[in-house]
C-alpha cells in the first residue's frame, strides 16, 4: 500500500487539495465548539458543544451534516482513490472516527453518559489535530519536492 512519499506529483497535488478541504470541513468544525469553551464551562455546556460539533459539524444552506457524513467522502478518497489507508495519520483518523461513531449514535439518542463527554471531546480534538497534521505533512512533502 502506498504512503504519502510514494505519490507522484499529480497525486500529491490531489492529496494536498484533499487534505486542505478535509482540514477545513472536518478538522475545523469537529472541534469548533470545543475550542470555544472557556475554562469555567459547565458539564452541560461541554456536552452541548460536543453535540453541536459531532451532530451538526457543518451547518449551512446545504443542510446539516454530522461528523461521519462529512468524513465519509474523505475516507473514500484517502483510502480508496489515493490508497493511503496505511498512512499513519490516515489510520489515526480512521480509528478515531470509528470511535466517534458510537458517540454520535449515543448523542442522537441522548444516551451519552456524563463521564464520556470529556473523553469524547478529547477524541474530537484528536481528529481535528490529525486533519491539521495531515495537511501539514502533505504541504511539507510538496515543498520538499519543489
Amino acid at each position: 500500500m502506498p504512503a504519502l512519499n510514494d505519490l507522484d506529483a499529480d497525486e500529491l497535488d490531489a492529496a494536498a487539495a484533499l487534505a486542505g478541504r478535509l482540514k477545513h470541513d472536518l478538522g475545523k468544525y469537529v472541534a469548533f465548539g470545543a475550542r470555544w469553551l472557556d475554562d469555567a464551562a459547565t458539564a452541560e455546556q461541554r456536552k452541548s458543544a460536543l453535540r453541536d460539533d459531532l451532530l451538526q459539524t457543518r451547518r449551512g444552506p446545504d443542510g446539516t451534516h454530522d461528523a461521519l457524513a462529512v468524513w465519509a467522502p474523505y475516507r473514500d478518497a484517502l483510502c480508496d482513490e489515493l490508497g493511503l489507508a496505511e498512512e499513519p495519520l490516515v489510520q489515526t483518523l480512521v480509528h478515531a472516527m470509528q470511535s466517534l461513531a458510537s458517540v454520535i449514535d449515543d448523542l442522537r439518542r441522548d444516551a451519552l453518559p456524563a463521564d464520556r463527554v470529556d473523553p469524547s471531546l478529547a477524541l474530537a480534538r484528536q481528529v481535528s489535530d490529525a486533519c491539521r497534521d495531515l495537511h501539514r505533512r502533505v504541504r511539507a512533502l510538496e515543498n520538499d519536492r519543489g
Partner: protein
Amino acid sequence: MADILVIDDQDRTLELCRRSIPEHRYRGPARSWKEAQQILARARGRVDLVLLDVHFDIPTEDLLGVEDGASKRSLDRTKARQGLLILQELRSRYPSLAVVLMTAREDLPDDQLIDDAEDLPYFLDDEFVDARALRVQIARIVDARRGQESEGPIFWGRGLAMRRLRQRLEVLARGGLPVVLLGPTGTGKSLLARHYVHPRSGRTGQFVSVDLSTVPQELMASHLFGSVRGAYTGSISDRTGAFEAAHQGTLFLDEIGNLSLDAQKMLLSVLQEGVVTRLGDTKERTVDVKLVVATNEDLASRVRQGTFRADLYMRLNPAAAVTLPSLDERQIELDRLLEHCLAQALRRPALRDLLKEVRRRHGLGDGDVRVYAGAGVPEAQAGVVSLLFPERSMRLLRSHHWSGNLREFAMVAENAVLFALSEMATVPGGDRADVVQVRPKIVRDLLAHSGLEPGSDPAPGAGIRVVLEPADTLNKVAQACERQYFEHLWLEHRGDFAGMAQILLGDREHARKVQLRFNQLGLKVRALKERLT
C-alpha cells in the same frame, strides 16, 4: 463594542461569536460576496470589522472568480481561496474596513492576492480559531482603530464627510488667512477652533475665544479692540482687547453674525492693516492673529440684506469655509459618539465620584469602564464596569431629532449615565452588579425634555424619521421608506401585528393584511427578534 460582519458559508462561526463574545454586535453570516455586499450596503458604514473565512463551499453561481468552462479541480481551487477573492473586493470597495482572515498566514497558499495587498488583513495565530484568540484580536483591532476616530474632545468618527473636513481644516489651519466654520448650533465649532485649528496653526500665542452673542453691542468694540481709561462712560482703566490678547495666537469669534456694523468696520480695518487702536487711543499696536470665525447664519444672505459688510465678508475667506454636519447627518456614528462622549464625561468629578461609589457598594474594585451600545450583556471581566445601552435605548437615541446636535447628545448621554449610576449606587447588588443598564425609561424621560423643539420625539407609530439613499426608481425609494416604517412599528410593538394594524389601518382585525405586507417587503421576523431586548 464593535459592529462585526461574518462572511462564512457556515452558520456556526456567527453563533459561537454571539454566544462566546457577546459584547459585540454581529451581522450575517454572508455566505458569498453578493450577500456581503448587500449587508454592507444596508449597514451604511457601521461595520467595523469583517471576520472572513477562506474556504467557501457554495454554489458555483455564487462564487467569485469562476472562469467559463472551469474544471472541477479549478472550481475546487476557487472555493478553497474564495475568501481571498472576497478580500480583494473588500479592499477595493471598503478600504478602511478591518478584515480578520480566519486562518493563520502560514496556512494560506502562496497567493498573489495576499502578497499584492497593500494593507494586509489580520490573521489569527492558529489555524483553528477559538474564542479567546478571536476576542483578543478583535479588541486589538478595535482599540487601534478607535484611536483614529477621536482626538481629545473632538470626535471625528469614520464618515467621509468628517474625514474630508479634517483634511481641509488641516490645510487651512496652517495658512495665514481666516477660517470660517459654518454649521448648526452644537456641532462643535468652538471645539474645533480650540483643539484642532489652533494647535495646528503653529502659533505660539494664546487661544482667545469670544462669543459675540454674549457681548453687549455697546461694549463689543472695546471687548475686541481694547480701550483706554475714560474712552467711554464707565471705562475706568485701560483694557486690552481680544485681538491684543491673541497676538501671535488664535482668535476665535463665535457668532460672527452678531458683530455690530461699527465693529465690523473696525474688524475689517484690523484685518487689512494688521494693527489695532484701542478706543480712545491714538497708538497703533501691531497684532498678528490667526482669525477663526463661526456662525450658524447664512452670512451671504446677511450681506444681501445689508446687515453684514460685503468687504468684511470677502476678507473672511468664505470660499474656504468649512461646514460641520448636523448630528442627524451623522446618525450612523451614534454608537461611537456615545462611547466618546461618555469617555469624556467619566473624567469629570460628578460621574467619576459616582462610579467610585458604585464600585465600592458592589465590591467591584478598580478597573476600566466600557460602553456597550445595543449589544448583548457582556461577559464579566475583573474590575470592568459595563455601561450597557440596550437596543431599545439605542433606538430611542437614534430616532430622536438632535436639534442641539453634539452638545445636546453629550448632555443626554451624560445625564443618562448619571441616572443609571445613581440607581446602582442605591440598590443592592444583583447577578451582574458590574453591568449598569441605561434603561429605555431613563432615555425616554431625558429625551422628552431635551432638544430645542417641543415634541421633537415622535409618539410610537405616529411618525418616524427614515434614512434613505438614492435609488434607481421612485418605487424603490418608496419601498425603502415603507420597509423602515414597518420595521420600526414591528420593533415598537414587539412583533404584534394586530397592534401594528391598529396604527396603520385603525383596526386590529387587519393583522393578517399587515403581516402579508411585512413579508412582501422582505422583512424577516427572525432578524428583527434579535434586535429586541
